[in-house]
């Protein structure tokens, strides 16, 4: 693929692009394609379209420049959708992280890089009735992205003790595993990927695909929350949104774009939320917002005799495959001390006595490819209304994964293990944790999710999908979607790379059609 990237020069690492921010004055523009969302799907699509000669405008809700800070609160105010306050209502509430800003989810993720499993993609072929997304079709795009983003296996020098412990433990248990490949060409192991990379070492979209799109002619309007899709004669012909001051929340002018095509790329929650809020639920059919998958997960922690510093080292740099458990992917996580402290449920002087010991905690989160599903709608004020129904086999697989994770932690160096699950204690054997977990309902678990997907599915049947294989919606001509919401099923691995790959392919298809 052309563009400013020359593989001979190594990964594409550009300065963050300029973006127009909010203003008080109303503004109207025209272009060939308007893309809502500057995350991995929108950025990849914008780049492919710009390289094909299309005039593209990307509209982004988040800030026009990086607003990173070294603690969760300040960063999340600017770089998470709804300030980090999105929750799926379920048997147990599931907090959901979704990024915003130039780079979207790639700003706040750990940059873990997986190719979609072949069996998943082959399954999609039957649903989509198109071979455009089979393994052979995605392979050249993945092959391009790997060197472009600078994806490499986490090196020991920056891994940190928690990742090393998991690799050591998995090897001792005889499990397949190792250091994760991550899109982090300049990583120095800060452990703060979730707050926005402070060193520029992570390959978030604003340093590569989005920046390259801008060099090819794409323009970015940020600090603008889209709330309408403009429809004329049964066709999407633009968008309209509200410009908002990111510091004060003050409403600015209205921003309107007229375009030949409208691409929504606001993510697994943001896209169906926006389309429902825009009043397109009936037009786009019964599948809009349905079938949501989350990759929910629960952590297992361990007390060690050595300093682990769970908040330092490569963020999420190691993994293993529990034997015989398909679609269960334990991998490490980083966590600020206060979040760990709350899991200990201490009060009084014991809380203070625990402070110096926090550095000896190790941990690993067990993520599953879920068969349970949820739905996304919009509250009257535009926030997402998310519900989720757990499937019994999923919670059984989480429990089984937690057992294997406890084994790995103990084999890696933990003296005891415990889980933030109500009704459990601290154990010296994985079998004791397994037995304690066995009878407990999902309501007792402390779940978390950061991979919302499949809520605007691609497929051939308008009754069960929202878009077809070109990315265009069944119900409204000129309206396209490209982000993780289009995945026909749960992916089973971290979705950023596949979101980029799908965005690239759909952008190329749109560009080829002129």
């Amino acid at each position, binding site marked *: 693929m052309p563009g400013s990237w020359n593989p001979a020069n190594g990964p594409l690492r550009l300065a963050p692009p300029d973006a127009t921010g909010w203003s008080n004055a109303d503004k109207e523009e025209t272009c060939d394609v308007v893309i809502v969302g500057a995350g991995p799907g929108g950025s990849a699509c914008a780049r492919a379209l710009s390289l094909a000669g299309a005039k593209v405008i990307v509209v982004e809700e988040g800030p026009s420049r990086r607003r990173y800070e070294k603690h969760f609160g300040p960063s999340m105010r600017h770089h998470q959708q709804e300030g980090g306050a999105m929750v799926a209502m379920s048997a147990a509430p599931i907090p959901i992280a979704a990024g915003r800003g130039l780079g979207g989810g790639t700003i706040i993720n750990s940059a873990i890089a997986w190719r979609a499993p072949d069996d998943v993609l082959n399954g999609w072929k039957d649903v989509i009735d198109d071979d455009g997304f089979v393994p052979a079709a995605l392979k050249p795009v993945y092959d391009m992205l790997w060197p472009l983003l600078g994806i490499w296996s986490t090196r020991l020098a920056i891994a940190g003790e928690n990742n090393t412990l998991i690799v050591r433990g998995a090897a001792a248990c005889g499990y397949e595993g190792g250091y994760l490949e991550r899109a982090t060409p300049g990583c120095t192991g800060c452990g703060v990927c979730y707050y926005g*990379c402070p060193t520029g070492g992570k390959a978030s979209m604003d340093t590569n695909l989005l920046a390259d799109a801008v060099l090819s002619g794409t323009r970015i309007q940020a600090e603008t929350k889209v709330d309408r899709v403009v429809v004329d004669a049964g066709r999407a012909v633009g968008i309209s949104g509200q410009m908002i001051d990111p510091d004060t929340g003050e409403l600015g002018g209205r921003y309107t774009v007229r375009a030949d095509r409208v691409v929504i790329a606001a993510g697994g929650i943001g896209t169906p939320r926006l389309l429902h809020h825009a009043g397109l639920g009936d037009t786009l059919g019964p599948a809009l917002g349905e079938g949501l998958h989350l990759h929910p997960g629960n952590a297992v922690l361990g007390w060690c005799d050595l300093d682990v510093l769970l908040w330092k080292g490569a963020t999420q740099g190691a993994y293993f495959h529990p034997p015989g458990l398909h679609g269960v992917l334990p991998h490490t996580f980083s966590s600020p001390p206060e979040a760990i402290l*709350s899991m200990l449920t201490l009060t009084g002087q014991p809380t203070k006595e625990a402070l110096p010991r926090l550095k000896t905690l190790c941990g690993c989160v067990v993520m599953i490819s879920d068969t349970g599903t949820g739905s996304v709608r919009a509250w009257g004020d535009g926030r997402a209304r998310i519900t989720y129904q757990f499937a019994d086999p999923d919670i059984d697989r989480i429990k089984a994964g937690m057992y294997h994770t406890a084994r790995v932690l103990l084999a890696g160096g933990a003296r005891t293990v415990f889980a933030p699950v109500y009704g459990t204690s601290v154990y010296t054997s994985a079998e004791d944790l397994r037995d304690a977990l066995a009878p407990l309902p999902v309501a007792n678990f402390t779940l978390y999710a950061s991979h919302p997907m499949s809520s605007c599915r691609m497929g051939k049947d308008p009754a069960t999908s929202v878009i077809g294989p070109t990315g265009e919606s069944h119900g409204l001509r000129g309206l396209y979607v490209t982000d993780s919401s289009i995945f026909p099923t749960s992916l089973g691995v971290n979705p950023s790379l596949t979101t980029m790959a799908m965005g690239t392919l759909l952008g190329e298809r749109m560009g080829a059609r002129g």
Partner: protein
Amino acid sequence: MPITRRQLLAVAAALATVPVGLGGVGWSWWGQAADVPLRHLSASEVAFFDALAEAIFPPGGTPALSGREAHVCRYIDAVLAGMAETQRDFFRLGLHALDALAWEQAGAALPDLAADPARGPEAVAEVLRGWLVSTDGNLRGLAQSLHIFVGMAFLAHPDVSPVIADQFGCGFGLSTGSTFVGHDAW
């Protein structure tokens, strides 16, 4: 204040996100002058958080600083400033629901329990411990979320963070093309 189960669910859901962070935070809240007015917390809500913070982080030990002395309520007030109005309403609804629950369980609001010489902060801690291990998952989640909130404030205080370990030794503060907002802007 009466609270319906549906409202409690909504409150629990809103606060369950605390582990991933909420709102904008007044970064140097601990250094604010006492006469700087709070923007959102009322006097009774400040008393609620002071009692809670003192129960989780009492005076003495290492560090000697207590939760109230760390001005946790000022941190919470800054967090509220960064929330959307609906979220802020849910948050405050949750505080009032918990205070009412303390009345039911211990016969007094948390600040009154803390101020009672015969009962004191240990009585507040006992109420909180009950919530943290409650069989009601929503109450448990709500209490745990407030625990994290208080912890976020206390652990970031300059007198406390050295006790935990060196944090964030690389990255922030380096000039590598990122544009950072100064702490004062918060």
